[in-house]
């Protein structure tokens, strides 16, 4: 630290990096909670057509008649959409700041690096973003990538979630895409959850271990619960 190179005064970022990290953390937790509950709901598929279709229909009716039809569903959808926009915006802003702070010399990854979780966050996030679009078109909206037999309503008046799901996953490529994406999501959650320790300043030794373990278990549950479904459809167990 002997010599000083003249530099322009440090730029003050707005919003601060700290604030962006908190946005990432809070919206990230929203997604982890959503993904976990979504996985839990998906387990209805193991109880058969009626259980899943009934659950899908209930999601639209929940709260009715106290609340308008589909209001809870739309409240959740809007929460998720706002979180998504905030998460992606903060991620891009932080990525740009990180690139600027690293400087123009890119160092190759360190040989013994344990950082591949962090390194795959951005490409993994882009993969998941594309998956969200595909998934919504496939099983919610029923456009472009949806199976030919996709229907918005079944003959029994319920949402035919089960038949739509089976039709979609009977396409091996789509099934493989879903299964692989579950691993990407689990990986994203695994590292994101670990990052929360730093974002929220958790320094206790025991709680850090417990917290990281909880994250790994959530990620594992999502893989086991979700990725099995396309495989079971392909093998004919769910039909």
């Amino acid at each position, binding site marked *: *630290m*002997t*010599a*000083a*190179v003249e*530099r322009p005064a*440090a*730029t*003050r*970022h707005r919003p*601060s*990096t*700290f604030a*962006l*990290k908190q946005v990432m953390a809070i919206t990230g937790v929203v997604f982890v909670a959503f993904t976990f509950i979504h996985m839990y709901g998906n387990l209805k598929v193991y109880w058969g057509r009626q259980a899943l279709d009934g659950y899908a229909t209930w999601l639209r009716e929940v709260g009715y008649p106290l609340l308008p039809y589909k209001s809870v569903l739309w409240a959740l959808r809007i929460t998720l959409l706002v979180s998504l926009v905030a998460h992606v915006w903060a991620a891009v802003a*932080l990525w740009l*700041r*990180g*690139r*600027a*702070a*690293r*400087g*123009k*010399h890119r*160092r*190759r*990854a*360190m*040989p*013994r*690096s*344990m*950082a591949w*979780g*962090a*390194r795959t*966050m951005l490409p993994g996030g882009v993969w998941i973003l594309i998956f969200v679009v595909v998934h919504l078109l496939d099983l919610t909206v029923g456009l472009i990538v949806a199976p030919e037999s996709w229907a918005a309503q079944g003959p029994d008046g319920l949402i035919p979630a089960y038949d739509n799901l089976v039709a979609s996953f009977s396409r091996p490529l789509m099934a493989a895409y879903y299964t692989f994406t579950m691993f990407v999501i689990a990986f994203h959650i695994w*590292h994101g959850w*670990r*990052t929360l*320790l*730093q*974002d*929220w*300043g*958790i*320094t206790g*030794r025991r709680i*850090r271990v417990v917290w990281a373990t909880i994250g790994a278990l959530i990620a594992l549950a999502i893989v086991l619960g979700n990725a099995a479904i396309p495989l079971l459809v392909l093998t004919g167990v769910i039909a």
Partner: protein
Amino acid sequence: MRVEIEVWRQDSPEADGRFETHVVEDATPEMSLLELLDRLNDQLAEGGVEPIQFESDCREGACGACGVTVNDTPHGPVPQTPSCRQHLRAFGPGRGGSPNLDSGSSASANLDLGSLLKLRIEPLRSAAFPVVRDLVVDRSSLDRLIQAGGHVDVTTGTAPDADDLLIGHDDAELALDFAACIGCGACVAACPNGAAHLFAGAKLAHLALLPHGKLERTRRAGAVVDQLDGEFGPCSSYGECVEVCPAGIPLTAVAAVHREKLRAAFRR
């Protein structure tokens, strides 16, 4: 043994740098990285070439003055060891420079002394560390972090009597662990985001544990985090800083940055 060194040469902060390749024929496994550079500089001086500029002081891992990137790893291939304590005997042959530390026998026995050792030596890389010349970088961005809040700035009167202010053993040990930072800047150079959270967090965690440091805890957290924001990148929990830190500062120091900042936010 023969060592081929690809070394960064840069005449001034504004100049474009370039790699130059030199060979040291008479290197020995006992040589440290800095001694290897000394030997190379002797050679260059004999040939009438300007020697390679690099920083060093104590050469025993205490001062934090030295620090170069070797084969893409800040300080060199031996984990958590400053450049001055990295010896050629620990480097495997070839570019990867993987250390032969895990063998039961002496490390040097593993090294094929007839083989060519290739090292690529460049400065610590970060936008916060502009190159002054060759391998010397300007790390005053770390000084500015310390100026912002890495100090105790309260009037404490005359020196207190011993045992006047009692500090628990565990707190004292923990504070000392965080105080072990030698300010070498390898954490910043290791970080793919150019973040200095390990450095700043070590200071915040250290001072937050001690009676005099506690007095300014809230103000310090705000000042240090603002300064981090201005000159360094965000932390994405890569953890590469911990791998290179010669003082063994743990990742909990990084968590301490936001712990202190969040604590300050709720105290306003």
